[in-house]
């Protein structure tokens, strides 16, 4: 039994931890040590098993081999007639697969997840035992769902994980459910996610209708072999899948839940909204790259949505004052970059950015958690400052992660972001799918976004850690560095933020393409499409010369440094905070617009939500008036008809009875005349009687 045959166990271990913590520790109120042990075991063993399985798989089977472990047959429907007229058997099995991209995802999901579990031990130690157990139960449950998502070998199992992470996100965001705004944030996340899930479900149905199967190992080769045949279907499926990704990965227009999700505990934000759940959308798009490469339209849509989201979220992040909100909008923006990468055909770059983003964003969130912890729950950066000397470890790791996100070379984010921007430029230069000008525009947007990213991230650093503490005397006394359970993961992630990007060195710049380890690793998932031409990966690499490529590298670095310098100018030194103040006064409208996040939530409230509420109220009215009216109407009809019945009974029936009595009366009046005592009357009757008798006698005699 090889470890890669046990990949189904990787999600199950945290699930067992979740069940135990949820049903036993929570109910019985067991101590935190027990909860810790179970939770850390659950996620830790999953991490070790995951890494071990990956290593064995690479060594034994090689990265080109997709290892599928089929557990059992899950859904068996009958045969359905699919679009091309043939009969397809509905036979969905619960099976997991280990290939390059799922291996990569397992690699960092289990590791980062474990680190965050460790961090949470320190962060949540103030909670009650039962809440503590509940938290870890949910966290383990989340790990289970995410791992099912990345390890699933067909769209159905992926969807199970997809839904599961949505559920856990709701549970964890609304962890402090006693506070109304926390519970509301949880609901918002879930509902907005659901909208995306609807699109995803339609995509699953469409996939089945087109291909007759949901297994990745089956329909990807099918699509790749006949590109023109499946092109239009691929557009539909790709767009519908992307709807799901929009919801899950917080792109425009369904990003509104992510900033509000900061209501949950900070480790949750780190895990779910930085490293794992939100990246599920990107994972799904990269997994289905065959579908997208068949459909230029879908790819363009993905790129446009990603690019616009990247810059849109960055602009909002410029003026936010809550430390976590800045990071939240930063996440939305970076996700936009990832989709931009996928949209220009740089699927590897997109996943690479997922990986590096996991490291530095998790580090940033955990660092912010440390800061909040030190400031006694304060999250407003205007009340912080000069924390550098109180919490050095937090500061240095935070700084390193910020350098990474800004795209400074050697640090992790530089390689991935640069790759994405380069590929965008290349798509523009080579007129990919004849959308060249669109891709150029997106590249420009990406560059602008890079400036903004560097700017607002360093604004955060300067305002939080540099200068003088603005939070008041009393709070200053409580400032302290966090315990080792919290700083240790920070250090690990910080180191990874420095060196993690080196797996993706763009070796071809140095005429050594083989240096780009990650590209080589992920190559097998980019299946070759039928005949070359329209796939993003197959685009000519000669559209951009080597010199141009180097130039772009320097350009992006310069852009990042420009952003940092701007932030320094605004937020450091003697005139710190004065300059931005003046700028805000000069452009009050723009400032207000950004500060209020373009009033997106308000717009949604006024249109969609009000519309839905009014619509449902209208339906309720309809039900109350028409439907209930109809029901009441039948009741009235019944009353009326029974009234009529009563009348009928009274008049007709009784009338008939009375009629009989009247007949008797009349008849008796008649017959009375026979017996008046009038003798001659009797005589006449006798005569008639005799006549009748005779007549009857004659009749009988004649017969």
């Amino acid at each position, binding site marked *: 039994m090889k470890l890669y045959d046990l990949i189904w166990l990787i999600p199950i271990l945290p699930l067992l931890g979740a069940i135990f913590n949820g049903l036993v520790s929570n109910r019985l109120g067991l101590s935190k040590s027990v909860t810790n042990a179970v939770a850390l075991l659950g996620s830790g063993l999953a991490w070790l098993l995951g890494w071990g399985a990956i290593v064995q798989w690479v060594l034994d089977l090689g990265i080109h081999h997709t290892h599928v472990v089929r557990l059992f047959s899950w859904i068996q429907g009958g045969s359905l007639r699919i679009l091309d007229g043939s009969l397809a058997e509905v036979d969905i099995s619960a099976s997991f697969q280990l290939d390059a991209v799922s291996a990569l995802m397992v690699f960092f999901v289990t590791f980062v997840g474990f680190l965050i579990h460790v961090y949470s031990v320190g962060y949540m130690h103030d909670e009650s035992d039962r809440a503590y157990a509940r938290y870890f139960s949910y966290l383990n449950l989340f790990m289970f769902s995410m791992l099912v998502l990345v390890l699933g070998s067909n769209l159905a199992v992926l969807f199970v994980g997809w839904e599961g992470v949505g559920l856990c996100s709701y549970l964890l965001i609304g962890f402090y459910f006693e506070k109304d705004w926390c519970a509301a944030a949880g609901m918002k996340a879930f509902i907005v996610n659901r909208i995306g899930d609807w699109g995803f479900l339609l995509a699953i149905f469409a996939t089945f209708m087109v291909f007759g199967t949901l297994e990745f190992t089956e329909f990807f080769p099918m699509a790749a072999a006949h590109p023109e045949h499946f092109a239009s279907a691929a557009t539909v499926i790709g767009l519908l899948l992307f709807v799901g990704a929009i919801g899950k990965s917080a792109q425009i227009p369904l990003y509104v839940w992510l900033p509000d999700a900061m209501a949950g505990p900070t480790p949750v934000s780190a895990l779910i909204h930085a490293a794992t759940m939100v990246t599920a959308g990107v994972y799904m798009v990269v997994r289905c790259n065959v579908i997208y490469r068949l459909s230029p339209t879908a790819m363009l849509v993905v790129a446009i949505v990603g690019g616009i989201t990247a810059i849109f979220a960055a602009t909002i992040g410029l003026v936010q004052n809550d430390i976590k909100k800045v990071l939240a909008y930063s996440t939305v923006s970076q996700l936009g970059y990832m989709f931009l990468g996928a949209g220009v055909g740089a699927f590897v770059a997109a996943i690479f950015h997922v990986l590096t983003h996991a490291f530095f964003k998790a580090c940033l969130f955990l660092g912010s958690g440390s800061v909040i912890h030190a400031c006694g729950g304060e999250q407003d950066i205007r009340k912080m400052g000069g924390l550098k000397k109180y919490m050095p470890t937090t500061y240095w790791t935070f700084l390193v992660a910020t350098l990474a996100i800004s795209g400074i070379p050697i640090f992790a984010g530089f390689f991935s972001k640069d790759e994405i921007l380069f590929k965008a430029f290349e798509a523009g230069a080579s007129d990919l799918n004849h959308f060249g000008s669109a891709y150029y525009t997106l590249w420009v947007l990406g560059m602008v976004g890079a400036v903004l990213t560097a700017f607002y991230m360093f604004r955060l650093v300067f305002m939080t850690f540099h200068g003088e503490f603005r939070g008041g005397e009393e709070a200053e006394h409580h400032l302290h560095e966090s315990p080792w359970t919290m700083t240790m993961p920070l250090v690990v992630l910080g180191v990874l933020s420095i060196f993690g990007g080196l797996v993706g060195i763009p070796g071809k710049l140095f005429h050594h393409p083989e240096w780009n380890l990650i590209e080589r690793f992920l190559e097998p998932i980019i299946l070759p499409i039928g005949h070359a031409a329209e796939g993003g990966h197959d685009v000519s690499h000669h559209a951009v010369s080597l010199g141009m490529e180097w130039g772009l590298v320097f350009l992006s670095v310069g852009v990042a440094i420009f952003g940092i310098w701007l932030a320094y100018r605004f937020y450091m030194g003697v005139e710190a905070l004065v300059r931005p103040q003046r700028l805000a006064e000069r452009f009050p409208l723009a400032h207000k617009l950004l500060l209020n996040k373009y009033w997106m939530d308000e717009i949604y409230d006024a249109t969609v939500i009000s519309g839905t509420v009014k619509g449902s109220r209208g339906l309720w009215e309809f039900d109350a008036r028409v439907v209930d009216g109809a029901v009441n109407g039948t009741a009235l009809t019944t009353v009326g008809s029974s009234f009529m019945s009563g009348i009928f009974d009274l008049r007709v029936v009784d009338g008939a009875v009375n009629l009989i009595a009247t007949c008797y009366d009349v008849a008796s009046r008649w017959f*009375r*005349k026979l*017996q*008046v*005592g*009038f*003798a*001659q009357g009797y*005589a*006449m009757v006798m*005569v008639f009687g005799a006549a009748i008798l005779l007549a009857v006698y004659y009749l009988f005699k004649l017969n």
Partner: protein
Amino acid sequence: MIGATHYVALSLILLCIGLVGLMVRRNFITVLMSLELMFNAVNINLIAFSFRLGDLAGQVLAIFVITIAAAEAAIGLGLIIALVRLKDTVALEEADEMGG
């Protein structure tokens, strides 16, 4: 020539006349007289057939009829006397003490 038919016809006519008179007349005395008429009709019939059949029994029966007729006439006339004494009228319709 004159067969039984003639006599029977005559008898029938007399009987019917008497019957009608019995039913129709208001005066009680006249009613009784109609009754006598009916008896005579019967007698005619009896005698006629007695002759035709050569059986004297018919004549004997006719004697009985006459006798009974006489008795009945006596009783009837007694009734008239009583009725006159009681109601002071011979109109039959007033000899009716029943209601209705």
